[in-house]
């Protein structure tokens, strides 16, 4: 089956030639006397949307130094260093476990392009988007946020949206 070919439609012409010019003038006149959309930024502030991509926050406790975010980052703006420490065995006679400890976790927001791949890819929910956006710096080095600053942003991360209502699983119904 061939898809129906679209016929280029005739340009829409108003009944009166040149009417569009005056419609346009009416629109600009209305806009002239309506309130401007401008927000006076430093004195007035826009409230960002809760899921706005302002800055990336880090939950240090959740991070396992798996390096997935650093490897997936398209412009390599995440710097991670860590080391392993021996954990004492959970039960006497058990095998000693090793745990990764984060030494360094920096995000260079001068390079970051706010794609959010690191947040998506983190398997341990250690990275979050925060809607905060006021962290401009006088020097480019000031945009490199170290671990402490990234975990400070964690306080500004909004609650995740509630789960959507879903129909109950048919499998669960059959169980009893």
């Amino acid at each position, binding site marked *: 089956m061939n898809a129906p070919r679209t016929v280029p439609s005739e340009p829409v012409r108003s009944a009166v030639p040149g009417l569009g010019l005056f419609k346009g003038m009416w629109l600009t006149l209305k806009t002239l006397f309506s309130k401007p959309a401008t927000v*006076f930024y430093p004195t007035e502030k826009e409230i960002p949307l809760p899921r706005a991509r302002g800055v990336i926050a880090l939950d240090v406790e959740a991070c396992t130094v798996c390096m997935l975010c650093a490897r997936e980052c398209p412009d390599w703006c995440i710097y991670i260093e860590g080391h392993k420490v021996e954990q004492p065995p959970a039960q006497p006679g058990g095998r000693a476990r090793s745990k990764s400890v984060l030494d360094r976790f920096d995000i260079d927001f001068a390079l970051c392009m706010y794609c959010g791949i690191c947040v998506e890819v983190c398997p341990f929910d250690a990275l979050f988007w925060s809607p905060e956006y006021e962290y401009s710096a006088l020097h480019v080095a000031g945009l490199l946020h170290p671990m402490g600053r990234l975990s400070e942003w964690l306080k500004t991360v909004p609650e995740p949206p509630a789960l959507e209502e879903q129909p109950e699983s048919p499998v669960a119904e059959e169980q009893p």
Partner: protein
Amino acid sequence: MNVWLEILLKLVVAIVVVFVAAFVVMFAELKVSAHMQSRIGPYYCGGRWGWAHVIAEVFKWLQKEDLVPAAADGPVFRSAPMVSVLGMCAVVVVIPLSPTLVAADLDVGIFYALAAGAVSTVAILMAGWSSGNKFSLMGGLRAGAQLIAYELPLVLAVVGVVIQAGTMSMVGIVEAQTQPVFHLGSVGIPLPYVLQGQIVGFVIFMIAALAELVRIPFDMPVAESELVMGYLTEYTGIRFTMFLLAEYGGMVVMSAIASVLFLGGYYFPGLDVEWFGPFVLLGKALVLTFVIIWFRWTWPRFREDQLQSLAWRWLVPLALVNIAVTATLKVLL
């Protein structure tokens, strides 16, 4: 009074009025365009509404380096902006702010105004040719073709008014519009020429004036998406400012001429022409200037061939018909 003192006084008054008006229109364009696009526009300079913005901007331009490209024809390049401002200022001479407040009430006033106004064409051609830049040259040639094409309907539209008034003097044309056209009881009702059948002439005049001023929708000579800035491409600093001043001053002057010819000039029923005349005329001119600004921020620009066909195929024949009809009616009535 000493003739030289009189000339000096007239010169100062004319220059102050024109330049202040040009500044006001520049500022109005910034503000009106901003609000038409749901923006604020200049806001901080000068404390309130950014009223000093244009003044600050002119001082900024004054500080900029005065560049002359190596390939440019130096003397011509340098003098083009002055010719442009001169062409604009020369027209001011015949604009009557009141029956007595006019630098020179020439018998051939409107003829002189149109002839002196055409000097700015020469300035644009000079700028385009001498810049030594292909964009400037294209812009200059476009401007030349455009200004020649629209000079004709501009003049022909004026002829209708001249026939009706029976004089070329600007004051005479305004005086003719103060004569009562018909009587309501014992009160004579004067009408401006736009209401006395010159509506077609007025529309043609305004369209041609827009083209003469190189304003949207007729700004192909400076079409920034194709020609960088047309004949203004190589200009910086004070010389660019002079072109800008000529453009905005030209808007006021053209609007003033249009209001003298078609809207009754300094005359407004019930207001004393000696005292309120200047304000009435400037008010009418500023209303027309607002309309010009309004067009600019609403409409797109014409294509070069559309522009030429509009002038030669529509405006010139229409203006000729307008003259014929006006002359016939003048003889018959």
